[in-house]
């Protein structure tokens, strides 16, 4: 079966045929994230196992050097200090996930805001075009009715002139 630990440069080998075969995704290689995680875990584990020596006191000469009590105290002190580092490592690991998530949300917010500005710009453009078309409609109405009014005035004046002339003849 495939290995669960993606920390090898070896090509994947099929279990059934025992032949090397290429994978579709290529060999899984060590990357920065895997390297950081492995180093962080191993350092934290090693700290728990090894820090005790640093806190072990040397009391008494020869075979009486140290005691069970001093070893116990040194162990507790080492565990306490190592736990602080382990917790910090966990927090750092979480921060590595949290920061891109926060940045992603901020990006979504800004992109949504940008699309809002674009919508407003399009509305402004359409509003300007609407005002221009409205004015053109009104202008044509004024021109047509103005022409018609002048034609009516002319027709009435001509009619009156005809009546005046005919009345004078009579």
């Amino acid at each position: 079966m495939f290995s669960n630990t993606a920390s090898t440069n070896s090509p994947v080998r099929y279990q059934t045929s025992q032949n090397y075969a290429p994978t579709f995704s290529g060999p899984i290689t060590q990357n920065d994230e895997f390297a950081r995680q492995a180093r962080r875990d191993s350092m934290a584990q090693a700290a728990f196992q090894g820090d005790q020596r640093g806190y072990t006191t040397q009391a008494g000469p020869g075979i009486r050097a140290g005691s069970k009590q001093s070893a116990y105290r040194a162990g507790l002190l080492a565990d306490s200090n190592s736990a602080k580092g382990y917790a910090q490592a966990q927090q750092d690991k979480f921060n590595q996930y949290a920061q891109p998530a926060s940045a992603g949300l901020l990006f979504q917010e800004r992109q949504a805001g940008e699309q809002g500005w674009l919508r407003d710009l399009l509305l402004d453009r359409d509003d300007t075009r609407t005002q221009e078309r409205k004015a053109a409609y009104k202008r044509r109405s004024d021109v047509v009715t103005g022409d018609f009014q002048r034609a009516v005035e002319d027709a009435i004046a001509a009619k009156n002139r005809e009546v005046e002339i005919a009345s004078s003849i009579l």
Partner: protein
Amino acid sequence: MAKKANPPGPLGNAPKPGFANPLYPTIGKLDASPPQGGYRSQINTQSPFGPALLASTAKVANPYHGYGTGAGDMTRSAFARSLTDTSRNAMNRSIDKFNVDYRTQAEKSRGEDILAQRQNSMDRYRMDTLRDVYNADVATGYDQRVKDLTAYQTREFKNADAKMTASILHAVGGLI
């Protein structure tokens, strides 16, 4: 004999906004319409972390095992367990707080995004409705103006014809 025109009755109450009235046909739509596909926001309000990631982040292995049976080994193991438990609880609390803050902010931003889209739709509805109203006003004014001028022309022609008829009658009367 000529009759005087009767004045129209009172105009009556104004139509109520938002309701159809056959005496006053509604121009345009009654309300703003959402964009095609409805109001949608790209802001995701889901937690950015899956349960597997959270479990792996909060997982704290117990690094010390005292294999002895003495009191020192057992108490040191208990002490180490208490440290890891505390650390795991602190991580869970931290992750929960982050998730709550994240989703609160995302919900707020999503609400603002949708509100901005609704505001835009309302502004567009106002623009379209006022345009339709203006155009209807212009068309109505145009029709009324044409009717006025047509009636004026007809009236003046009839007056001129009457004046002509009067002149003819006057001339005929003089001959008699």
